[in-house]
Structures are given as C-alpha cells and as structure tokens.
C-alpha cells in the first residue's frame, strides 16, 4: 500500500520515519502547560539518569565514601586509580575479549542470514512461504526460558556446551533479524525488482545489487541491535559457559560482584566499563536503534 493521505484506520508511516515533533500545525500549549511539561520532563530525566550518575560517581570514590550519611554527590578525592586497579583485580581483559568476539560473530551471522532469508520471505513467492513465516513470528510469543532446557540438552549432545560456539549458535539465527528485514524490504517498491527481473537479473542478483544497497539503514539497525543484545546477554553465557576463561563481561562482572561484594567502588568501576562500549555505540547510532524498534514495533 502506498502512503496516500492518512485515514484513521490504517496509517503506516514511511520507513525512514523521524520521531519527535512533526511539522504539522499543532496548537501551541498554553504557558501553564508548558511549565508543567518541562517540570515533568526534568523530573523524569532525573529519575532515569540518577542510577547512571550514581554508577559513575561511585566508581571514582574510595570504598568508604560510597555509602555515607549524608550522601556525597561528588567524589572527593577523585580516585582514578580504580580504573587501573580493576584490570589487576579481575580478568576484565579476557571477559571483554570473549564478549567482543561473540558480539562480532553473532552480528555478522545474524545480519547475513537474516537479510538473506528476509528476501526469500518478502520477494519470492512459493508454496508454504506464509506458513513458514508464521512459524518464525510465532516463536516471538515463546520465551527462550521455556525451551532453554531441551536446547541445552541438544547442545550438550552436539558437544557444543561450554564452548563459545554455543552462544553463537543460540543467538545468530533468531527470528528478529528476519522479521525486521522483511518489514523493511516490503517498503521497497516491487517495481524495482520487477524491472530488474526483466533486465535478466537473477533473484540473488536482485538481492545483492538492489535490495542490499537500499536497505543500508535497516541493516545498520539490525547490526547495532544484535551487537548490543549479544553484548548484554547474561542468561545464555550463564547456562552455557562454565569455564572461567570463557566468561563474558556480564558473567565476569557478576562473579566479581559476588567475590568482592564489599568493594562497592570497584564494583561500580567494573559496571561502568561494561556499559561504556554499549553507551558509545548507542550514542553514535541512536537513529538506527530508534528506527529499528519503530519498524518492528509498529507493524508487528
């Protein structure tokens, strides 16, 4: 369906939708409303940010300064040393290395197989396609927690448990990537591939030369979201990775917390380091996160 003038029942925004403030004439809120709006905004922002503020500030405190009465809202003295000590006191390097390796491998596989499969679902007509897609979508209503036991049994039979491969296997073939890419492909006009077909391009050629270049924003969304999800995953590594040298950052951080549970400042230092890469990626690619979520969410 094309995007003609909007009706109330079925309105689908164009793919590259931008989020706040649309350019339509909208009544200007009265002064009192504006003030109330700003007050609410500031309050909500404070509530959302306070934990992060606490994390960063505590990571720069001495251990005894973390919990004080009254609370010290600024570190004094500023203990930069925490950020040097953490590398000695923990296996941070191993954890970060493992996590980076996993995140890159999973993201690459997910983007490749996901965008490939999505083309099959979005553009090739063959019997059984819609039933198959329903199976994909249906698993979104099935939480991983409910089939983690048989999955673990299967992986153990394949001798993959307690290897990094297990995490690659369970994360790389999710339905999410297929779903997101299919939603995006369907916004690309069919005529484009139709005329390419007339020009003699194979289906693979159409995917490679037309769809892929056009779907760069969606690919970016998928890559970023997958990377962050894998980076943050705690349950998969918890179940599959038993050897200390295989630990990911989340697993490592949690063992560190239970080992040194009174090292309040250092625990926060570790937390900051575990969040930092994700924060940087998010701030750089924010647009893609937002668009990816809006696409999958809206049309779900």
């Amino acid at each position, binding site marked *: 369906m094309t995007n003609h003038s909007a009706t*109330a029942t079925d*309105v689908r*925004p164009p793919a590259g*939708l931008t989020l*706040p403030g649309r350019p*339509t*004439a*909208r*009544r200007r*809120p009265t002064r009192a409303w504006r003030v109330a709006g700003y007050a609410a*905004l500031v309050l*909500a*922002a404070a509530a959302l940010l306070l*934990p992060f503020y*606490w994390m960063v500030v*505590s990571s720069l405190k001495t251990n005894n300064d973390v919990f004080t*009465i*009254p609370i010290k809202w600024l570190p004094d003295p500023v203990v930069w040393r925490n950020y040097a000590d953490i590398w000695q006191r923990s296996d941070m390097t191993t954890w970060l290395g493992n996590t980076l390796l996993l995140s890159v491998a999973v993201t690459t596989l997910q983007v490749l*197989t996901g965008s*490939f*499969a999505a*083309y*099959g679902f979005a553009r*090739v007509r*063959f019997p059984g396609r819609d039933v198959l897609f329903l*199976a994909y979508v249906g*698993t979104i209503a099935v*939480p991983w*927690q*409910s*089939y*983690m*036991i048989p*999955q*673990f049994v299967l992986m153990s039979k394949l001798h993959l448990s307690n290897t990094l491969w297990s995490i690659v296997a369970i994360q*790389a*073939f*999710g*339905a999410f*990537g297929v779903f997101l890419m299919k939603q995006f492909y369907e916004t690309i006009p069919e005529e484009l591939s139709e005329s390419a077909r007339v020009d003699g391009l194979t*289906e693979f050629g159409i*995917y490679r030369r037309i769809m892929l270049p056009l779907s760069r924003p969606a690919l970016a969304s998928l890559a970023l979201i997958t990377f962050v999800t894998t*980076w*943050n995953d*705690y349950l998969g590594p*918890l*179940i599959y990775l038993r050897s200390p040298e295989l630990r990911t950052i*989340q697993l490592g*951080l949690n063992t560190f*917390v239970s080992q040194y549970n009174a090292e309040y400042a250092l625990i*926060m230092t570790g937390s900051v380091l575990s*969040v930092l890469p*994700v924060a940087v990626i998010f*701030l750089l690619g*924010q647009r893609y996160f*937002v668009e990816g*979520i*809006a696409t999958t*969410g809206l049309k*779900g």
Partner: protein
Amino acid sequence: MATLSRPRPRRSLVWRNTVAGWSFILPNFAGFAALTLVPVVALFYLAFTNWNVFGVAEWTGTANFRRMWNDASFWTALKNTVYYTVFHIPLTMAAALGLALLLNRKLRGVAFFRTVAFFPYITSIVAIAVVWNQLFSPEYGPVNAFLRWVGIDNPPGWTTSADWSMPAVILVGTWRYMGYYMLLFLAGLQTIPAQLYEAAQIDGATPWQRFVNVTLPGLRHTTFFVTVMLTIESFKVFDLILVMTQGGPGQSTLVLSQYVYQKGFVENQFGYASAVSIVLFAICFGVTLVQFLVNRRVER
C-alpha cells in the same frame, strides 16, 4: 495466500521460485529449526519423562505434572510471577504512554530526553541490578535517604525484606522498560493525523475528551502490540531477578523461569524442569492467543 491469488503460474516457474525461495531462507532456517523449533517440540517429550543428566529418559506419563500440582514452591513461583506481571504491565504502560505524550509536545530538549529514556533499556541487566542494589541499600542507600528526608521514618528494607523485594524488582523493571515502550507509543502517536485533533478542538472537546476520543482510539494498534510484548516480557522475567535478589529473601521473588533454571541446571532434574517450562510456555502462548482473538473481535 499470495501464490493462490495470482493467475495460475506455469509449473516450472513455481518450481524455480520454490528453489530460489528456499535457498534464501535455508541458511537462517537451518539454524532456527535446529535451535528453536526442535527444542520446542522436544520440550513436549521431555516433560513426560523423569530425565536427569545421568540416566536415560524414561517415560513417566503425567507424573511430573502430578508432582507439580503438589509442589508448594511451584505455586509460589507462579504466584510471584503473576504478582510481578499484574503490577509491571499497568505501571510500565502508564509511564510509557505518559512520557510519549509529553515528548509528542513541542518542547525543547525532547531529543535529549528520548536518548535518556532509552538508555536503561540498552544497559545490561547485571550493571542495572548492581547499581539498583546499592541505591536500595536499606541503611545508607539514596532511595531510603530520600524517603527519610520526606518524612518517612521507617523506610522499607527493599531487597532485604520479604515484603518489599518484589516491589523493588517491579520498580526496576518498570524503570528499565518504559523507555522502550515509550518509543513504540511515540511512533504510534505520530500516525494520528493532526486534523482529528483540530476537528475535536473546533467541536469544543476538552483535553481529556481529546485524549479519550482521539488519542486512545488512534493508538489501538500500538496499545495492542505493547500489551502483548509486555505480557510475554513479564511472564518470562528472569535475569533481572536472578541478579538482583536470586529469588530471595526466602522465596519472596522466586519466579517461574527461575524455578525452571533451579530444577534444570542446578538440580539436574531436566524432566521435571521441562514440565514447569510447559506451564510457562502455555501461559505465554495462551495469553498472546487470547489477546489476538479479543483484538480481532474489537476490530470487527
């Protein structure tokens, strides 16, 4: 469906498309089938066996389910999961919708706020749980410091108290997810045509009437999707609780997923754990199905 509605294509074309379609889908589907579909099916076999890691799986019929019926811990886990769900869904929904309405106005700093609101969602559970445990610290934590400051002399013990650990987890859950659902609502709000608001205003509708008669109906699709996602997300709640409270104190925050984990991976009772998984599976699937049917009926 799409295949049938076309004028009957030549047989060779159907064949060619089937091969093309499957070759696109196969790389992803192979992994998806092996690691998701097969385990889901296997779940329904394992649940009727007494399998632990060492022995062989022996068919025991409904023994696991009869055991579950008399298992007080199972009922506690189910009750706690429902407790979490019943509060998490409306709280998150209200917060997300409220924030989305706020951001949809023309205020300064909206883009910044959107980033802030989304931040908890992309931060790993481990880091979040660790920070919130410090914030909730009964004696010296800032949450209770604040409560004392506003005049509550005897603030709750949060994660150290059997009565307050669940509210603490619910609060953190809401804090984490409201930014994500806010984005979905925001995207939904932008599909409501401004003309409808103008017309309502000309008819003399109050802001509240505009909200009830224009905004809410316009958000029907989004609200439906959000409800489904929130329900599944609440019933499968696991990592947040595992890291924040480990189900304690006592069994005060023990939830279904964690009980599966406990029975399966800690006590090696894979058969019984699978039976509990089926309950989790059935709840998520059933609730989603009911919501879909209700949504269809309302739509008509």
